Every structure is written in structure tokens, then in C-alpha cells.
């Protein structure tokens, strides 16, 4: 039996990016806030210590600071006719664990979605007609506009200190920035990072082709910066132990560097770590959350009553907690009804590898978000009419690292071992670069999340089951993008190039991205969305759901800029609407 604890105003499940921001702002608003986090406390000086941090084997290969599948994993299959099996070892994506969440070991590529991305169904239908949308799609408009989100994108970027160059300031296109981006109210908080030699070649080649390259917006800071919460950061040293690692230099924006130093000083705030929330408990009529149940490090069960429950456990785990707690109607693939688990989407990856001669790219001088990008082929920035697909990709030339256990490129056809392999590894390391396309994934009836009928976690609760595959539209799009990447690679002066098509069917083994979206999407209609425009559950008014699970479909960008903007947007609604008059903020 769970023992009951004294009531709190707010219980936050998970203390990563979204949880730490919510906790700080609501504690400052005077509420009693408890954050319950299943992993350990992590700080820069102690846990991302320079004497232990740059360890490729430990962090990048053995996944020391990630969630351990033994504690929780998912099952997966490509379509509903197959039997799902557990993801026994992480591959395609890498969920975080512990204070900071995936925000402590992310790359830091911090994007805004384009205005068209947020009204995508209307936009595509207006431009191409409804018949142009792919078969089986469940593409939906977002229930808020880019203009409504802009102040909150801005706020998130200033908390993180993002390094970049604006491309559109108050409607005026800026040289050196991304001319396709939505209107910004002000310049990025810090100037763009320096770029390497290969980005120089990319920028020159792309400009020569009439494309519009710009430095990728980065949470690896170009200069020292103090954010609005008073947290200070130091310049990035291009150390190359960035994604999958915590930063020893206080240079990567993370909950540790940007939020926690202020948060732990708030007298109304308390964090309980190594405590896993197992359920949100609802009132008899199912309309209100009463409390959350959690299990502490000793295996003891506790019940924490709270007036407001915020799910900040990472998108996938928010969806599982909703399914396990009965928040919202589960999505049923056969009938197409229900909303929790609906519209799961992901990200495509394709591109071209470029081999040069007589160059020193020095791939180890790198950072998680270093790179030059272009958006000419993203979203609907080009005419899709002749191509027969929807969606697009951001195209990038980047080095995130040159760590040799995982980064040892050789030309296709090279032997995998022996002296010939050894020679090829040595000869290739300095002279290869990549032009990559990170593409959108639309939502489809056939891609979804539900509870697995067979496999359980160590507490005996069903794992979540992921049914996902890349659909013909995404395959067509990603492979078309790969050809664009190859054109640029050739223009950069590559001696030889190699086309990297999208790997299909979706395979759980190679790392692709931790950009899992959907499952509890935001929308205007409770029949096709789990949360309203303020990320409030349609069914349980005192539960708000953060994270990329609220995306109706995914765009051709990394998600966290938009996750952060949505968090501040929801926070604004909680502070200015919900706390004044608790209840449903949108009437059904």
C-alpha cells in the first residue's frame, strides 16, 4: 500500500528540459512544487567532470547516463501484422535518465518550426489540393500559430543563450541568416559558432548554386553568456564530446547550466530523485487527477497528492503514463478512434558522403550543433507539385564529433577488417565529410503507440508498443533529398560521393535521432487530439502534458526549440488563465 504524503500545489513528473522550466517558473509564482525524477541528481562539476566526461566507450557506446532498458523500454514492430519485440538495447533513439533528462546529453541544435509547418494541412490543401496529401495520412494543423508561439520561442532561446544569426528580423530579411524562417522579434542572444573548413566549402558551394546557407542555431555557445535566470555559461571549446555526453565546460545549454542553479534556490521547490512515477491517480469520475504514485530507491511506494500534475517525463513516457493512468481515450488502430498513442511520428535521415583529397577536415574539432545548414528544401519552401511528395528537410554539413569507436568512415566496398581496412581507415579519417538531410515525417493511421500485450517492465506493468515504419511519402522525400545533398557535395569539390538513401524498413539498431513525436497531440478537436491548444488534457483538466508527444506530426527539424516554446506557451496559460480559474481552458 502506498503511503500518502502531504499535498503539494504542483507535482512534476520528470526533471529534464520541460520539467525544470515548469518547476522554476511555478515555484517563483509562489506555488509549492515537487519534481519527481526517476534517475539520479546530476551536476556539471560532479557528474560531467572533465576527468571522466570525455569517455567514448562509457557514454556513447555503453550508454552510462541513458535510461537503462532494464528499467524501462518499449517494444517495436514495423506494422500491426507483426509481433512486437522489446528494444533490448537502445539504438535508433536514446532516452535520457536523471536530472536534466536528454537535455543534458543532447546535441543542442535549436530550431523553430516554420509558420507553414504549424498550419500544414490547410497550407498544403490550399496550394496543391486535398488529393495531394499522402494515403493514410492524419496530418493536422497545430491549434496555435507561429505568431502566437514567437514570444515563447524567443524566451526559450534567451534562457538557452542560443548562438545563431537571425534571417528575418521583424519582417526584414537579414544577410547571413535563414531567409525562410518565420519573423523574429530580435536577434539571437549570442553570435553564431565558428565553422570548420568543410562548412566553408559547403557555404561557398551552396551559395554558388543559388541556395541560402547559414550557421546552424546552436546550444553550444559561441561566447560567454548570462541568461535571464542569472545562470552563466562559458564559450564552447569544440571538444567533440558533446552529444551523448554532459558538457564539462558549462558551454552546452542544458537544465544543469540554464535552469537548475536558479531552481534549487527556490524555497518552494523540492526534487525527489531516484523516484519513479508509476501512475497518475484520478478522481472517481476520472475528471481530475488527485495524486501521483511513485516508487523510491528502496522499492517503497508513495502517493503524492497535488492540485496540478505536469507530465514532463519525455514524450514517449508521458504517453505511457497516460495509457497506464487512463488519461484520455487510447487510440485503437482497427477503428481509428481514440487519441492517446495516435499520430506517432519520427524523423528521416538521408544524404551523401563526400570524399576529398589532400584536405585536413579535423573532424574531432567539433560540437553537437556545429554546422552550416540550408532550408531551401525544407517544409514547403519549394514547389512540391512536380515531385509527388509532401514535407522537406533541413540540409546540413556538420561535424558533431570524430570519436573513433563510432566514427571511422571508409568508402563503400572497403573490407571490414585486416590490413586493407586499416589502411582505408587511416587514409579516410581526415578527408571525408557528409551532407545530410533531416526530414519531416507526417502522421499516419498506421503509425501509433499502445500498450504491449506481452512484455512487462520490472514492476510488472505493460511496456509501451511502438508500431512504426517510414511510409512511401517519406521514402520518396528522403531519397530526393539525398540527391540534393549529393549535388551540393559535388559542388564542394568532392573527388567521389556516395548516396545515402533512407534505410527502410525502420530499423531499431542504427542510431537515427531521439526525435520521437506524437502520441498525445495538441489540436482543436478532442476527437483527434489528446490535449488542447494549451497542452491541457481534454479529459483531465488538471493534467498538462509537455514534450514532443504533443506534435501533430514532425517537421524537418530537431524538436526541442518547439518543445521549449510550447512549454513557455503552456506555462503562460497556466499562470494567466488556469491558476485564476482552474478548469478546462478550452470548452469542448
Amino acid at each position, binding site marked *: 500500500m502506498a*503511503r500518502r*504524503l502531504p499535498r503539494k500545489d504542483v507535482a512534476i513528473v520528470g526533471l529534464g528540459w520541460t520539467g525544470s522550466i515548469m518547476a522554476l517558473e511555478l515555484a517563483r509564482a509562489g506555488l509549492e512544487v515537487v519534481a519527481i525524477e526517476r534517475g*539520479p541528481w546530476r551536476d556539471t*562539476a*560532479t*557528474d560531467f*567532470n572533465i576527468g571522466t566526461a*570525455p*569517455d567514448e566507450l562509457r557514454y556513447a557506446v555503453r550508454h552510462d547516463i541513458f535510461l*537503462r*532498458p*532494464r*528499467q524501462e523500454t518499449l517494444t*517495436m*514492430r*514495423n506494422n500491426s501484422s507483426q*509481433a512486437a*519485440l*522489446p528494444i*533490448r538495447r537502445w*539504438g535508433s533513439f536514446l532516452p535520457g535518465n536523471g536530472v536534466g533528462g536528454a537535455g543534458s546529453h543532447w546535441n543542442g541544435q535549436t530550431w523553430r518550426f516554420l509558420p507553414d509547418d504549424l498550419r500544414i494541412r490547410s497550407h498544403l490543401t490550399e496550394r496543391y489540393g486535398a488529393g495531394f496529401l499522402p494515403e493514410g495520412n492524419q496530418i493536422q494543423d497545430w491549434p496555435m500559430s507561429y505568431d502566437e508561439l514567437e514570444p515563447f520561442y524567443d524566451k526559450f532561446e534567451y534562457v538557452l543563450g542560443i548562438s545563431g544569426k537571425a534571417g528575418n528580423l521583424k519582417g526584414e530579411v537579414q544577410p547571413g541568416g535563414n531567409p525562410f524562417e518565420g519573423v523574429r522579434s530580435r536577434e539571437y542572444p549570442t553570435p553564431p559558432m*565558428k*565553422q*570548420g*573548413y568543410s562548412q566553408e566549402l559547403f557555404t561557398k558551394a551552396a551559395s554558388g548554386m543559388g541556395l541560402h546557407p547559414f550557421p546552424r542555431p546552436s546550444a553550444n555557445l559561441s561566447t560567454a553568456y548570462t541568461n535571464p535566470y542569472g545562470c552563466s555559461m562559458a*564559450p564552447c*571549446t569544440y*571538444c*567533440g564530446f558533446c552529444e551523448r555526453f554532459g558538457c*564539462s565546460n558549462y558551454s552546452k545549454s542544458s537544465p544543469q547550466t540554464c535552469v537548475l542553479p536558479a531552481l*534549487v534556490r527556490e*524555497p518552494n521547490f523540492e*526534487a*525527489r530523485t*531516484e523516484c519513479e512515477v508509476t501512475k497518475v491517480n484520478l478522481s472517481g469520475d476520472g475528471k481530475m487527477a488527485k495524486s501521483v504514485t511513485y516508487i*523510491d*530507491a*528502496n522499492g*517503497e511506494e508513495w502517493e503524492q497528492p497535488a492540485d496540478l500534475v505536469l507530465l514532463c517525463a519525455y514524450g514517449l513516457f508521458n504517453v505511457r503514463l497516460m495509457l497506464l493512468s487512463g488519461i484520455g481515450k487510447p487510440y485503437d488502430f482497427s477503428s481509428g478512434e481514440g487519441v492517446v498513442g495516435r499520430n506517432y511520428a519520427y524523423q528521416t535521415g538521408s544524404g551523401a558522403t563526400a570524399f576529398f583529397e589532400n584536405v*585536413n577536415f*579535423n573532424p*574531432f*574539432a*567539433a560540437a553537437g550543433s556545429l554546422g552550416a545548414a540550408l532550408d531551401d528544401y525544407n517544409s514547403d519552401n519549394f514547389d512540391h507539385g512536380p515531385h509527388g511528395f509532401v514535407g522537406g528537410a533541413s540540409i546540413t554539413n556538420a561535424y558533431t564529433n570524430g*570519436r*573513433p569507436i563510432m566514427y*571511422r568512415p571508409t568508402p563503400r566496398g572497403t573490407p571490414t*577488417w*585486416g*590490413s586493407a581496412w*586499416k589502411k582505408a*581507415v*587511416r587514409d579516410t579519417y581526415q578527408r571525408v565529410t557528409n551532407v545530410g538531410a533531416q526530414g519531416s515525417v507526417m502522421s499516419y493511421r498506421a503509425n501509433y503507440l499502445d500498450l504491449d500485450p*506481452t512484455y*512487462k517492465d*520490472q514492476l510488472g506493468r505493460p511496456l509501451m508498443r511502438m508500431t512504426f515504419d517510414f511510409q512511401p511519402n517519406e521514402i520518396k522525400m528522403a531519397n530526393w533529398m539525398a540527391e540534393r545533398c549529393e549535388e551540393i557535395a559535388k559542388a564542394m569539390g568532392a573527388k567521389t560521393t556516395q548516396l545515402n538513401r533512407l534505410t527502410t524498413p*525502420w*530499423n*531499431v*539498431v542504427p542510431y537515427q535521432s531521439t526525435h520521437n513525436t506524437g502520441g498525445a497531440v495538441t489540436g482543436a478537436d478532442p476527437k483527434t487530439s489528446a490535449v488542447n491548444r494549451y497542452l491541457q488534457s481534454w479529459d483531465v483538466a488538471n493534467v498538462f502534458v509537455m514534450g514532443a508527444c504533443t506534435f501533430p506530426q514532425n517537421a524537418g527539424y530537431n524538436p526541442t526549440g518547439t518543445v521549449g516554446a510550447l512549454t513557455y506557451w503552456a506555462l503562460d496559460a497556466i499562470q494567466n488563465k488556469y491558476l485564476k480559474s482552474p478548469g478546462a481552458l478550452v470548452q469542448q
Partner: protein
Amino acid sequence: MQTDDRSLMRAKFAPSTEKPKHAGMSRRSLLATAALLITTSGATAKVVTKVLPWRPNEVYPVTPVVPGGWLFFTADEAAVVDAIVDRLIPADELGPGAKEAGVTTFIDRQLTGPYGGHDWLYMQGPFSSNPLPTQGLQSPLTPRQQYRQGLAALSAYCKANFGGRGFTDLNNEEKEKLLSGMEKGDVKFEGFSSRMLFNAVYANTMEGFFADPIYGGNKDMAGWKLIGFPGVRYDFRDVIDNPNKPYTLPPVSMQGRQAWGER
């Protein structure tokens, strides 16, 4: 490390019978339970409030591997692994190979740790006998079991097919042909997948040759020197400022480098 410590280690890597109550927590969290705070209401949790919980080196430092002897392998097994890794990354005019770089010691020590038992992975059944290729790792066998059973199967295969000789007795051409067959899965061992053994040794060889030398492989940073990886210098602003220039400084590992003196 003293010999008696080793026998202790040998006992340690036998699967532990003692289960933490809430498994999946890190080793560190188990240690930390001793320091749990009791809240006013009696809940046991690490409670963080008002002041940062500065606890230096909460993240456990790596214990440097001291080469010499075997903690997991028998001497015969180690000789076979040595012979395999020597073919995968041979010593040649480009420098030392995996054997010289201590990769067998690396693998031996890795097998005694959490990796060797797949301690952090989801290992609950049922285990499918016909997973989809897209579903990744689905075997119930831990790396320790893969090596123990796989090496025994390889040894039996060699005895039966090479006139009673063991793997180490084969000439280089025979070894390489056999390894290629294992890589493709063409070679059929009795009761064990030859490909599974190959994949395990292959992945661990690459890890050992290119991981920080603190783990026992990549001796003298041979792997890093081969490709020109400078290691853990952690500051490459000078490189970014000087595009397309060869990098000439020697690599540095987590324990520094030889030139910094004996440790």
C-alpha cells in the same frame, strides 16, 4: 591489482543473486541509498532543496585496467581471442595491431563488468526465435555466454575440420578464411551461431582498439595515432581558427600520456 583481488573479481562476475529492490538504478544509486534523507513525513528519497547537492565525484571514476592475467578468459580462450583480434587488426607497416594494443585484455575486463552480463539491458523473456531483422538484439545470451559457448564451438569446429588443430595452430590464410566464413554466417558451428561469435569479437575489437587506454586496449594510444585522433584534449578552438591545417600534437588520454611520466 593483486592476484587475490583477481579471484575476488572472478567470483564477482558470476551473476549476482542479490537483486536491488528497484533494479535498473545505477550502481551509484545503490551506494547512495545509505545517504538517503528522511523527509518530515518519513518518505525515503534523495531530497534536493535550497542548496545544490555538491558531492564531488558522485560519478564513479573508472578504475584503470592493469594488464596481466585473465579475469574471465581461460588461458586457452585468451590465446584464441588474441589470434582472432590479431587477424582483425593486424600489426603491419602502419603500426601495432589489436593484439599488441591489448585488445584481449580489454575484452577480458569488459566481460567482467556490467557489459558482460548485459546488466543494463532488457533481458526479460519471452525470447523470439524468429525476430524481424529490424528488431535488433533478441538473444538471451549475455556477452559472457557468447564468448564461453562461442569459443568452445569454434574450438570444436577447428578440431573437426582442420585435422585436430586448434584455431591458434592455423596459418594466417586459414584463419582469415574461417573468420570470413563466420562473418557471413556461412560456417556452421555445432550448437552456436558462428556469426554471433564473430560479431561479438569484431565489435569488442573495434571498441578496444579505439577506446581510451584506461580500459586496457589502445595501448600507447595506437588506435588514435593510426587515424590522428588527438584524444581528450577537450579544447580545439585553435583547430577551428586554423582551417585545413594538419594537426600535429600527440594524443592525450584520460590518464595523460607517457611523456608525462610513469604513473
